């Protein structure tokens, strides 16, 4: 109990609390402006967290992303444009509610369900993470190698495009992580004689390039004017919300738990959780025919699930240092820069930090209620900012952000090149999530692989000799078999489609 109070005390210090509130406001803004995703917002926040202590830095990221995932629902209900991909699953449904004159109810349900989902996710995190950490203290390099590989394989498995492209995206990330001094012998690799590359590719400019520059390029090419949002009566956002959610309490509970689990899977984040929760609630619903007509049941489920996924993603990130989604991939990058290596030892050595992260999550989810109301109130103004003004300013922000981490213009180059390459890759249906996960995990994979293979003296059977390591290894191989099977199936199917098309 003492530890919990200390954690809350630490987070509620005026300065830390101010940063959390400011980050929340920022997150609400990012989330409610269509085109700015939670991941992009986090990437842009990183240069600022660089100047903060670990706890406020993590607090800022947690608060901003929690708010952004909820705020993505606001333009969804008002304009039928999801603010972030995580809201896309139920945008139509909430817009139908607007057409029925229930826009306030939709937003109120979004807000309260986001909070409930978020809190359930935190509860799962608080209960599960230390237990898993205790088990994983006995892990050796074999287990870590398989775990990291399993995480990366999952990331490919859940990405919607072709597995081959996912693997290639993964390979790029792993290759980027090998640039610099190698972990085994300290030899310079792929530095092209450039002194800036000896320390490796820095993560901040890569993140900004991958998630912000790509989006700026798309938005600048297609300037769009948002339609005018309708007026919202705040009073109506509160009344009737409780009873609506109570009616679908089973759905809330199921989707929150489901969301936490999906979030914990590497590579699957809030958007996938929302889609699956929406589909499942339709399947389990007593009135599936009402879905798509402005019926709150699907909204209740999906908006609980996406916020739960956000918290769930922190389980593997904190316990193993294996990110559960792109946002936690960034968070791990931030922790590493602060000299904290996420892993089971953090739960032994740094319990203060772990408890503070839990406290931040609880506070951020509770803050969502008052700040969310304010955001809905201010959203008309926010949504009237023309996008053609916004994106050039964000580009300037990116340039300064990439520069600020190491105070070197070289990183601005890295940002630009990565951004352009990522843009072309995304245009050709390559998923970016495996790449960023691989870049963060690359060193962990290589280090543990090299340790293991040297220990085993080249005997690959040793990789399966330990019980947990062997199980993880078999799981990984099973996923690979599935992936290969899937791509072969796709290939034959498309060939058959091509031959019948003639």
């Amino acid at each position, binding site marked *: 109990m003492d530890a919990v109070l200390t954690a809350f005390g630490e987070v509620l210090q005026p300065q830390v609390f101010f940063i959390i509130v400011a980050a929340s406001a920022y997150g609400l803004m990012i989330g409610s402006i269509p085109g700015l995703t939670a991941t992009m917002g986090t990437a842009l926040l990183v240069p600022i967290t660089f100047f903060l202590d670990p706890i406020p830095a993590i607090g800022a990221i947690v608060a901003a992303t929690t708010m952004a995932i909820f705020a993505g629902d606001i333009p969804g209900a008002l304009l039928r444009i999801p603010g972030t991909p995580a809201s896309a699953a139920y945008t139509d449904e909430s817009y139908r509610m607007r057409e029925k004159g229930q826009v306030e109810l939709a937003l109120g349900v979004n807000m309260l369900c986001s909070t409930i989902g978020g809190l359930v996710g935190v509860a799962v995190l608080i209960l599960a993470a230390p237990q898993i950490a205790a088990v994983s203290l006995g892990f050796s390099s074999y287990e870590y190698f398989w775990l990291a590989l399993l995480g990366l394989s999952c990331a490919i498995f859940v990405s919607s495009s072709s597995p081959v492209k996912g693997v290639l995206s993964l*390979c790029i990330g792993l290759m980027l992580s090998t640039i610099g001094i190698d972990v*085994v012998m300290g*030899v310079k*690799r792929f530095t092209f004689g450039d002194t800036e590359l000896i320390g490796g590719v820095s993560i901040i400019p890569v993140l900004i390039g991958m998630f912000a520059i790509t989006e700026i390029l798309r938005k600048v090419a297609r300037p769009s004017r948002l339609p005018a949002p309708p007026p919202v009566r705040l009073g109506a956002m509160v009344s009737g919300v409780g009873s609506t959610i109570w009616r679908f309490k089973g759905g809330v509970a199921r989707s929150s738990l489901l969301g936490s689990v999906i979030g914990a899977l590497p590579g699957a984040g809030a958007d996938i959780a929302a889609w699956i929760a929406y589909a499942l609630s339709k399947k389990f619903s007593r009135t599936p025919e009402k879905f798509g007509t402005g019926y709150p049941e699907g909204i209740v489920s999906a908006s609980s699930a996406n916020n739960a996924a956000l918290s769930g993603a922190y389980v593997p990130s904190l316990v193993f240092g294996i990110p559960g989604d792109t946002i936690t991939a960034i968070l791990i990058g931030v922790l590493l820069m602060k000299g904290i290596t996420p892993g089971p030892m953090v739960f032994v050595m740094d319990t203060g930090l772990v408890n503070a992260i839990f406290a931040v999550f609880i506070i951020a989810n509770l803050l969502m209620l008052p700040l969310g109301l304010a955001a809905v109130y201010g959203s008309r103004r926010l949504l009237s900012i023309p996008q053609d003004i916004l994106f050039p300013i964000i580009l300037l922000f990116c340039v300064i952000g990439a*520069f600020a981490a190491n105070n070197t213009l070289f990183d*601005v180059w890295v940002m630009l090149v990565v951004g*352009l390459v990522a843009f072309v890759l995304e245009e050709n249906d390559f998923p970016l999530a495996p790449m960023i996960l691989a870049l963060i995990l690359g060193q962990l994979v*290589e280090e543990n692989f090299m340790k293991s293979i040297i220990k085993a003296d080249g005997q690959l059977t040793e990789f399966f000799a330990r019980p947990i390591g062997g199980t993880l290894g078999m799981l990984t191989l099973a996923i690979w078999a599935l992936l290969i099977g899937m791509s072969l199936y796709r290939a034959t199917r498309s*060939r058959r489609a091509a031959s019948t098309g003639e």
Partner: protein
Amino acid sequence: MRMNDAVTGGVFVLLSALILFAARGFPTLPDQPYGPGTFPTIIAAVMMVCGLALIWSGARSRVPLLAVADWMRGAATLHRMAWVPGFVIAYVYLSKPIGFPLLVPVLLGAFLTVTTGRPVRAAAIAVLGTAALWLLFAYILRVPLPLGLLTEVIY
């Protein structure tokens, strides 16, 4: 910028060949076949197999080698998009000699004029935006943003 899979696959095969070649030059641990080149070699091998798979599937499809998506067509669109790398490159080369406070309002104002088509409003936003970011990064976060020409004026 949609390319046929065979084109992207070819790029990956080429890249993996270069990596394989470079990785052969790395030393190995004494008395062991492994070393800094082991991991890149494995990745490059995977990359090559996947690249070949893309070439194989791309060659059978009838997708054109290179197609520009509809939304990217038009000189005006490409012009606006070219401003993104242009802006960054101009900043990299000019920020040191000219300085952030002088360069950025001009650069940002020009970019905003291109996107909004309203030069006066663009100029006002550019000046305000630069001032706000300067305040945040140079004063509050103490990032050494270059002063350039203003260095002598101030000191």
